[in-house]
């Protein structure tokens, strides 16, 4: 057994990749062994996903070679890779929203007779896969009706459904998951490991990496930095290798004291309800306050924020500056200086084919309108360049299509877009999803800064440390209902107890 587990299954030698003039990978190398979890760690845009896409046959290396299971390996496309036993769960979800979970999981491999799909067999097969993996999803549901976390589980099921995997790549599989689903995923990984399957794992969540990894390779700016065994390294050392400097703290300190309880709320919500999604939720938030929202899958946090932003109808009373406010559409919401960094950047946040500049100015076009509706292009460009600098978005220029940015940098672009609207109330739904530790710190600093300037912030996150580290107060939701409003200093145990509904 021990001889088998040390078997080299994948060897990457001197792989380079150019996208036009942009060099995404330079002489990368990597050795992955069977039965081990090998984590790739690097900042946003370091080249992790690019390397994985080369292994999956989505991109082709500009130079270098790969050996897989002892033979040269150069897959033409993902099907080709799957046939060799290499499967990948992509960072960006690649599901068809108007098809069912079952159809998505078995896409291109539907059980069929003479080209006619056997729907019952399809559903049965998908249900089997989902059950074997222990995932809580209904395979007959349309993907479009699922939450981001559930969609991510479907993506995982799709990736893991090939016959005899030898190497499984998971590119930020947990970025939308809460702890409960993360645990399910980890037990799946343990089972794969026991079968001798090798895993390449990518994540920006350090605790997760320390819990799961056997080997850790750090890459920076497309170059190999080092490989360490988990036992021989600490989180701080890894971060230092990754960002090239020491980082002492994860959450920046407050810049000003939390607003006193006597302050009038800027936003107050009373008896907010929507059938089947959330019920009788009430809370308020003051100027300069950071109000955290925590809950598990199905707790209704994102749905409620969508309703607050006018994307969905809901009943209840919303007051802004103590005046009743009707917000029937995002136009109303933006008019009242509310901004909403949505959870699903690809569908709700960005126009992938358009430039970084156009995406950043998108929600604040009115600011750049001159007489007769002409655009003040120069002001627009200046604003976009400023935001790119402020959020350290890694892009060749502001004219680059946002779709070619790395996942974390796309996320920062969404943030930039909403910061440009200079909101009084800022709703953040998983604002650091897929963002590296260094950049997370920068984003937290900006959130602190905004709060100090008087912006009220509603921070939704499935990362408990994040909500605890950042919030002045914390709203915990469970199955669509508010289960507790806690002070910022609450312990993780108390929060989890309210989130799971197990309070006695």
């Amino acid at each position, binding site marked *: 057994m021990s001889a088998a587990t040390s078997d080299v299954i994948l060897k990457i030698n001197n792989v380079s990749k150019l996208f036009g003039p942009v060099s995404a990978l330079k002489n990368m190398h990597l050795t992955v062994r069977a039965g081990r979890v090998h984590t790739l760690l690097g900042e946003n845009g370091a080249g992790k996903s690019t390397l994985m896409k080369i292994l999956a046959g989505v991109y082709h290396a500009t130079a270098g070679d790969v050996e897989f299971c002892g033979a040269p390996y150069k897959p033409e496309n993902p099907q080709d890779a799957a046939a060799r036993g290499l499967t990948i769960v992509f960072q960006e979800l690649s599901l068809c929203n108007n098809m069912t979970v079952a159809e998505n999981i078995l896409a291109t491999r539907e059980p069929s007779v003479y080209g006619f799909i056997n729907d019952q067999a399809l559903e049965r097969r998908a249900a089997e896969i989902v059950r074997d993996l222990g995932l809580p999803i209904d395979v007959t549901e349309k993907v479009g009706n699922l939450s981001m976390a559930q969609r991510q589980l479907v993506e995982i099921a799709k990736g893991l459904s090939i016959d005899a995997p030898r190497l499984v790549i998971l590119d930020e599989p947990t970025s939308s998951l809460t702890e409960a689903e993360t645990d399910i995923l980890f037990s799946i990984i343990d089972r794969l490991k026991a079968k001798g399957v090798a895993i390449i794992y990518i994540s920006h969540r350090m605790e997760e990496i320390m819990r799961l990894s056997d080997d850790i390779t750090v890459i920076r700016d497309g170059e190999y930095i080092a490989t360490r065994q988990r036992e021989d390294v600490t989180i701080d050392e890894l971060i230092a290798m990754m960002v090239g400097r020491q980082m002492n703290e994860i959450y920046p300190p407050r810049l000003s004291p939390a607003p006193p309880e006597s302050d009038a709320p800027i936003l107050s919500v009373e008896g907010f309800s929507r059938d089947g999604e959330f019920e009788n939720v009430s809370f308020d938030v003051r100027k300069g306050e950071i109000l955290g929202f925590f809950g598990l899958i199905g707790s209704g946090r994102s749905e409620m924020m969508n309703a607050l932003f006018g994307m969905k109808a809901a009943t209840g009373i919303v007051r802004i500056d103590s005046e009743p406010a009707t917000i029937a559409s995002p136009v109303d919401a933006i008019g009242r200086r509310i901004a909403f960094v949505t959870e699903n950047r690809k569908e709700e946040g960005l*126009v*992938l084919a358009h430039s970084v500049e156009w995406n950043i100015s998108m929600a604040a*076009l009115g600011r750049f309108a001159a007489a007769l509706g002409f*655009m003040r292009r*120069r002001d627009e460009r200046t604003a976009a360049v400023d935001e790119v600098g402020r959020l350290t978005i890694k892009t060749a220029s502001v004219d680059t299509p946002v779709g070619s940015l790395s996942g974390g940098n796309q996320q920062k672009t969404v943030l930039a877009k909403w910061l440009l609207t200079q909101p009084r109330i800022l709703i953040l739904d998983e604002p650091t999803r897929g963002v590296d530790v260094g950049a997370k710190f920068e984003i937290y600093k900006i959130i602190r800064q905004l709060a100090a300037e008087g912006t009220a912030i509603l921070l939704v996150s499935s990362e408990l440390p994040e909500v605890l580290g950042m919030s002045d107060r914390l709203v915990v939701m469970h199955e669509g209902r508010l289960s507790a409003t806690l002070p910022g200093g609450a312990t993780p145990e108390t929060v989890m107890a309210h989130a799971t509904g197990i309070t006695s």
Partner: protein
Amino acid sequence: MSDEKHATAQKPYAKLLRQYGGILVSLIVLCIIFSVMNPRFMTVANLMNVLQQIAVIAIAAFGMTWVILLGEIDLSIGSIIAVAGMAAAQAFLAGFGFMPTLILTLLAGAAMGGANGVLTAKLGLPSFIVTVATMGIFRGLVSLPTNGAPAMIEDPTWIAIGAESFVGLPIIIWIVVVLFVFNHVLLSKTTFGRRAYLTGGNREAAIYSGIKVDRVKITIFMISGIMAAISGILLSSRLYSAQTNAGTSYELDAIAAAVLGGTSLAGGVGTMIGTIIGALIIGIMNNGMNMLSVPYFYQLIVKGLVILLAVWLDVRSKRAKQ
């Protein structure tokens, strides 16, 4: 603006070449082929003629570019062209003067386009279905006043549009130039144009960003209707009459011009510059093959093949960039 231009003195040209290089080459190759095969092709008189011939298609294609940019389609413009001509003829018969008739015709175009837009946006129906239906309805409407017979137009000002020149250029060409500039500026320089690009690129993200996507959609179908009505005015002016079958299948040429010019059927991408080059390619193919007396059915086949080739080259060059 000025210093920015100064700093990047050659950049705009380089960018234009990169973006339109492919179709510009196609355009030049076509011109060379036709001038080798027929020496009369490359004469000023003939090129003027080509420009006049493409006017009707080019203007309709400007409207189509907006619609396709939004990820929608408007198949009814051929019928709107005919309705516009017939509306004008009937207005003159009823004793209206030039200006009132002109305004009425444009309003008719706006109303028909607006109907397409409202049905698409407010009822949430696919524009393909809506405009297939209105294509039939509008085509039927044309024949109502005359029972299918053509109607003469004798107003001298109306006829002058298609026949006279102004400072050395046919009025028709002036109209194309003015409308090109108008659409180009509206699309590339205004917030409305930007909203169209964003809505076409990702409708959901546009809604979240506070863009009134329904309003954008209805306005754009109205623009398409108005452009088609102007095409109808030019056509009826050149024919001295309103024909009930005028403009039949022009929507296909307009779509071809827009797509040749790089407008993406998926939405979010396209320019008026591309479209005018696309319209020139189609016009030159029509004219060149007519001059060579190529039978009509061969012309159809050649045109179809050229469109396939151009679109394929375009897709391939975009993939190569990955």
